[in-house]
């Protein structure tokens, strides 16, 4: 059907949101490439079976190779462009795997990485180009894109699209300035080089040129970019190939040169040039694949690829030699071989192009120069390897390879001959449909005849042949000249330097930003917050302050707040003397609880007070293990920077507070005041909010406390700390751990404090108090026992693990919430009722009280556990060694006295 000019399309939806379909397309161009991939692929597989040695993992090789083959087919058969990019990148990946197949070799790993970076990077550029293309056309399907040539060429985004797509093409097809990866990819096993790096993968870029030819070509930019890159690559490749000593190196640069030739043809932009390009794609694939296989045979049979050592192989392997000579002649463009036909067309097109402008006469000249070198290196391949005396110091004695290594080469060489001699009966039909598929119109008239009469192209061929032989004859001098200078120009050096520079840059940037310093991180967060507040405010034009009426100032408040501020500043000033700073910090906390009293918030005052006490005890316990003073800062600059940030933060927060306090607002709180008694059954609105309206917050809050307790417990297990035996003044710690007066007093106090806790707990729903405050008071009561009587004594009397207390607390709180669910209400719904108890009278029973009990238990459990575990630590370190030590010291001191 394709031969009848039809285009077959089959697709399924994939990600409709971006127009990605899983769709395939078979037209002439796709068919040609699919045939190349499959036929040469088959030959390569047969060949590789005998090429690989027993040590190599056959399974891995063929898995990679078939993955590659599938991806390559995917590229040429894709209807959807994004899908094509997917396959495109897959070929980069599989080529990475194949090049690095001999992973123990450094050159293989480096070559694979270089190929991946260049072709993969190009693929990403192609992706961007395809996205733009789809954006312009409105579809990623080739059918739509190919129909939208005029739209695309006329679009503002044409140049970006062209550049991005060409980046993909040039990297993949090893065009200047990205050509340098290809020779390094030759570290791959030879079947891979033959398949990927001459016949198929490097042709993917060329394929794309053909595919987008109707859409992107025909503009001066196309001609300059594509033609320019092609011409430079053609010349560089041909020139460099001559000077390679490695057979595969020679073939690699030759491949680069031929890819440049094809690119240049597409760059001419005419339909006939496209015909020539496609014809040359076929021819190059056949002769170059066979040459690579020959190179592989030679490598396989001689153990080296160095042409300075491999000489005179004709008599060792005559069959292979004949095949190689025919293929190399095709490469040189000798008549009666396929390379000649497409080269003639190429010369013809170069001549046509020379009419384009005043300077275009240079094109045919440069083309002939390239052809001269092409003849010369082909000659070198034949002469150096198969003639030129005897082999030098070969690792193996060469002989003909196994038959199945030759059969693929045989077949390809037969094709070279058949196409070269009878093109009309061999290549014509497939070339015709491929051209039609490429151009998306009826192909132009062209002739595939071997003989077109005496004309300029024939003359050019002749000149190239003669001069090529001449150059080869003069090669000694040329080699000397080359070695003295040009040989050292290697793009790889630049590439590696760039990569190294990028690495250094990356390290420098990363380490200078992420210094692993907490101060650095904190400064960034705080400074960003300051900036965010400022930017946020200034992004809208609105006044900073509102016009709400302010409260009058009274003397007591001024005094209290003045003390607060002074204490706060003193904490900073004296922060290096840690104990003093901690005491002042306690003062700050106390004044804050007084402030809460002043501003009608007794619950807060109680909470703040009890938290303050527990926190200070905790910090004191901790301080025991820490140095008593903070050393001086290392840098004054940092201190002044921090002062600036601190002051700005202070100013910022002050202004922010005032900005809110000078405005009126309508809070949702009225609801709470109205519903607290009828809906929540309590007159202490704050407590009702905590256990009822916003009970889930409280559930989360006790989860936090429980976590803190458990986390502290987990951290303290196995922690070893060295406790000091002297305080900051150099005095020994008192060995009398539990003074008797304190013991007696606290034991008496315990029942009293627990009673207070229960009282505070029970009244919480209606008066300031509640589970949390009660929990803290009970904790303090218990902790005081530990402090004054010692952990062992208290634990003997308090025989339950605090883990259980925490667990039960959480369980009770959650269950209270769950009960409501059992009754058909949402989680955490509360209920209350009034009971008439004898003697006591009317008493309210609210389910919220059960919840509050959970809170109480968690608070007690977590607080006591943290403090006691910490205390144990000090006890251990104290009792085990230090007490003994201090006693000994004390004794020695006394003796000294």
């Amino acid at each position, binding site marked *: 059907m394709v031969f009848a000019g039809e285009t077959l399309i089959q697709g399924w939806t994939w990600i409709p949101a971006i127009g990605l379909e899983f769709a395939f397309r078979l037209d002439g161009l796709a068919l040609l490439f699919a045939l190349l991939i499959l036929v040469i692929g088959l030959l390569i597989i047969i060949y590789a079976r005998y090429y690989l040695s027993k040590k190599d993992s056959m399974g891995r090789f063929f898995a990679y190779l078939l993955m590659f083959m599938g991806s390559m087919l995917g590229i040429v058969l894709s209807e959807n462009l994004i899908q094509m990019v997917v396959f495109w990148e897959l070929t980069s990946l599989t080529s990475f795997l194949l090049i690095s197949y001999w992973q123990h070799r450094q050159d293989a790993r480096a070559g694979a990485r270089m190929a991946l970076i260049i072709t993969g990077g190009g693929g990403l550029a192609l992706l961007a180009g395809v996205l733009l293309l789809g954006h312009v056309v409105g579809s990623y399907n080739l059918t739509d894109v190919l129909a939208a040539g005029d739209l695309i060429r006329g679009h503002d985004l044409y140049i970006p699209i062209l550049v991005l797509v060409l980046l993909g093409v040039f990297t993949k097809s090893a065009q200047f300035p990205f050509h340098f990866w290809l020779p390094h990819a030759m570290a791959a096993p030879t079947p891979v080089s033959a398949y990927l790096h001459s016949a198929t993968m490097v042709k993917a870029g060329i394929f794309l040129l053909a595919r987008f030819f109707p859409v992107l070509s025909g503009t001066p930019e196309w001609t300059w970019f594509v033609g320019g890159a092609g011409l430079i690559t053609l010349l560089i490749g041909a020139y460099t190939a001559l000077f390679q000593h490695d057979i595969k190196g020679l073939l690699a640069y030759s491949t680069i040169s031929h890819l440049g030739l094809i690119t240049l043809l597409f760059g001419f932009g005419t339909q006939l040039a496209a015909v020539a390009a496609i014809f040359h794609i076929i021819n190059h694939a056949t002769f170059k694949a066979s040459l690579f296989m020959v190179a592989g045979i030679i490598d396989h049979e001689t153990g080296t690829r160095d042409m300075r050592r491999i000489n005179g192989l004709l008599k060792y392997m005559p069959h292979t030699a004949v095949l190689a000579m025919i293929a190399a002649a095709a490469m040189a463009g000798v008549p009666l071989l396929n390379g000649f036909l497409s080269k003639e067309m190429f010369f013809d097109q170069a001549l046509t192009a020379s009419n384009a402008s005043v300077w275009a006469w240079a094109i045919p000249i440069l083309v002939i120069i390239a052809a001269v070198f092409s003849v010369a290196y082909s000659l070198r391949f034949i002469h150096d390897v198969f003639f030129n005396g005897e082999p030098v110091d070969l690792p193996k004695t060469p002989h003909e390879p196994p038959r199945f290594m030759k059969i693929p080469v045989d077949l390809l060489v037969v094709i070279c001959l058949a196409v070269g001699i009878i093109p009309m009966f061999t290549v014509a039909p497939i070339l015709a449909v491929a051209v039609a598929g490429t151009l998306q119109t009826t192909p132009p008239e062209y002739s595939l005849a071997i003989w077109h009469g005496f004309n300029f192209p024939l003359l050019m061929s002749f000149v190239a042949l003669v001069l090529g032989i001449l150059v080869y004859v003069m090669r000694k001098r040329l080699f000397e000249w080359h070695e003295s200078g040009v040989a050292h120009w290697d793009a790889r050096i630049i590439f590696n330097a760039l990569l190294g520079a990028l690495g250094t840059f990356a390290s420098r940037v990363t380490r200078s930003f992420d210094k692993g310093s907490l101060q650095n991180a904190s400064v960034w967060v705080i400074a*960003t917050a300051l900036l965010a507040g400022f930017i946020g405010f200034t992004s809208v034009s609105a006044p900073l302050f509102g016009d709400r009426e302010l409260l009058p100032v009274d003397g007591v408040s001024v005094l209290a707040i003045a003390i607060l501020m002074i204490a706060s500043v003193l904490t900073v000033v004296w922060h290096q003397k840690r104990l003093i700073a901690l005491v002042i910090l306690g003062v700050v906390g106390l004044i804050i609880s007084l402030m809460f009293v002043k501003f009608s918030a007794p619950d807060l005052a109680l909470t703040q007070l009890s938290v303050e006490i527990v926190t200070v005890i905790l910090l004191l316990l901790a301080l025991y293990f820490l140095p008593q003073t903070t050393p001086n800062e290392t840098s004054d600059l940092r201190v002044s920077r921090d002062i600036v940030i601190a002051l700005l933060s202070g100013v910022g927060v002050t202004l922010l507070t005032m900005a809110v306090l000078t405005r009126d607002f309508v809070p949702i709180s009225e609801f709470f005041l109205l519903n607290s008694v009828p809906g929540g059954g309590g007159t202490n609105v704050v407590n009702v909010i905590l256990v009822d309206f916003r009970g889930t917050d409280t559930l989360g809050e006790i989860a936090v406390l429980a976590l*803190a307790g458990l986390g502290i417990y987990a951290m303290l297990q196995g922690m070893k700390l060295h406790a000091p035996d002297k305080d900051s003044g150099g005095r020994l710690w008192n060995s009398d751990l539990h003074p008797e007066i304190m013991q007696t007093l606290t034991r008496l106090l315990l029942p009293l404090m627990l009673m207070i806790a229960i009282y505070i707990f029970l009244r919480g729903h209606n008066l300031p108090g509640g589970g949390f405050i009660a929990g803290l008071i009970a904790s303090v009561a218990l902790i005081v026992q530990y402090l004054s009587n010692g952990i062992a004594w208290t634990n003997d009397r308090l025989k339950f693990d605090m883990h259980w207390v925490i667990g039960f607390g959480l369980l009770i709180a959650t269950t209270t919430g769950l009960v409501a669910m059992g009754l058909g209400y949402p989680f955490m719904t509360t209920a209350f009722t009034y009971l008439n108890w004898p003697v006591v009278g009317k008493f309210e029973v609210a389910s919220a009280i059960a919840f509050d009990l959970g809170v109480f238990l968690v608070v007690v459990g977590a607080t006591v556990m943290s403090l006691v575990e910490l205390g144990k630590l000090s006890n251990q370190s104290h009792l085990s060694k230090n007490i003994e030590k201090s006693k000994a010291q004390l004794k020695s001191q006394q003796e000294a006295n």
Partner: protein
Amino acid sequence: MGGIRLQRAISFLAVIGLVLLSAALISATSTDQYQVYLLGNWTAPFGIVLVLDRLSALMVTVTSVLAVGALWYAMTTNTDKKGEHFHILFQLQLFGLNGAFLTGDVFNLFVFFEVLLLASYGLLLHGNGRLRTKAGLHYVVINLIGSTLFLFAVGVLYGVLGTLNIADMAAKIAVAPQEDLGVIAAAGLLLLVVFGVKAAMFPLYLWMPSAYANTSAPVAALFAIMTKVGIYSIIRIHGTIFGSEAGELAYYYAPWVLGLGLITLLLAALGVMAARGLREQVAYLVLASVATLLIGVGLMSPAALNATLYYLIHSTLIAGAMFLLADVVLRGRGTYEDRFESGSCMPNAILIGSVFMIAAIAMTGMPPLSGFFGKILILSAALDDAWFAMITSVVLVSGLITILSMARTGSLIFYKVLPEESVPASECGKPLNRMAFIAVIGLLLASPVLVVFAQPITAFTEATANQVFNSAVYIDAILTTPAVTEESK
């Protein structure tokens, strides 16, 4: 530790139950209805509401799947025995995460943040080690500063708008007088800083690489969702209260998210290149994926959000797999651990290496795995944006840098493996723990699944994105849900 078997059984059953429950939640959202749950039976905005929509269902599901992988790995490698209370911390971590994803109240979000943070502190420090303690200290302090900022921001919002419910806030911002907008905008950006700290946005991410690199593997894997909490919060809170209804403030935060996301992405890519060990490298890869998400969020269109959500599923699960895999490598390399030095011997190198390659392909966004499609979705959503050229270059260039770095890592670790005989047994790593490896494979499977089932999955994320952008419906659904009465039961 006597009860560890019981703890494991309960813990594992709980996460399996969570997965099933999440699946039920996902199907419950298929009608585009918001499910509003009035905690304590108090109507919004007065009580706290839980809101289930496609977005929260998606987040909960991703979390639960990740949790199964992380927990399985923790149990099969006995990481949970390396210290006290692993399972309870793990479960409370999930409690905090799920709460944060479901709540409809800003202050309640703060509380759940604190729950998940404190649980994460405990988990981060689980096991021991100098570097872990140091990283933990930094993590805790930075997050405490973050929590303080959160309270300042919530305070201002309450002080001006008089409410805490997200929907109610959105409704009130829409009608707020012009002179209040400055303060509101300042609070909004402060909140962005808070979420930026969680999400690891430049310049607030400094806590992140060393915290992720130095904690135990299952914890790091679970933490893959932690940064997404920040992303989620920006989408949810900022997307709703500064959404299309917010007048002058509509999406005013978005350019900042986009710009900072781009910077983060570049720095993350450089970090991937500069990393000195595999775990640090994976941490920077996670940073890069978060940055990509920030870009998606900053583009503020339904298409971009669709892309973001797809990429979020991918990056969370694959990052989890990657952290576990880094640990597998570390255990296999013996004394070389995860340092970038070649020459170790490594049992099962070919298997681990192949899986590593697949994971790296997914993580760096190479085809044919989900990372690539996520990036394409984001880039094609950016096509209409004025910053398209910038976004595309940054995304692709940083992608290339990560690809080349991972290629280097892969060949360094797996291509230069010495045969076991040639290395003294003491230096050689342990043989592969196949049971634990199941977790890696399981999480990695997400990537091909995301590709093969891209159509239904993007259909879901697309519907999710549309739902998020329709904030008027969200507001209305929450503020009109009635309480349960005796009759309505």
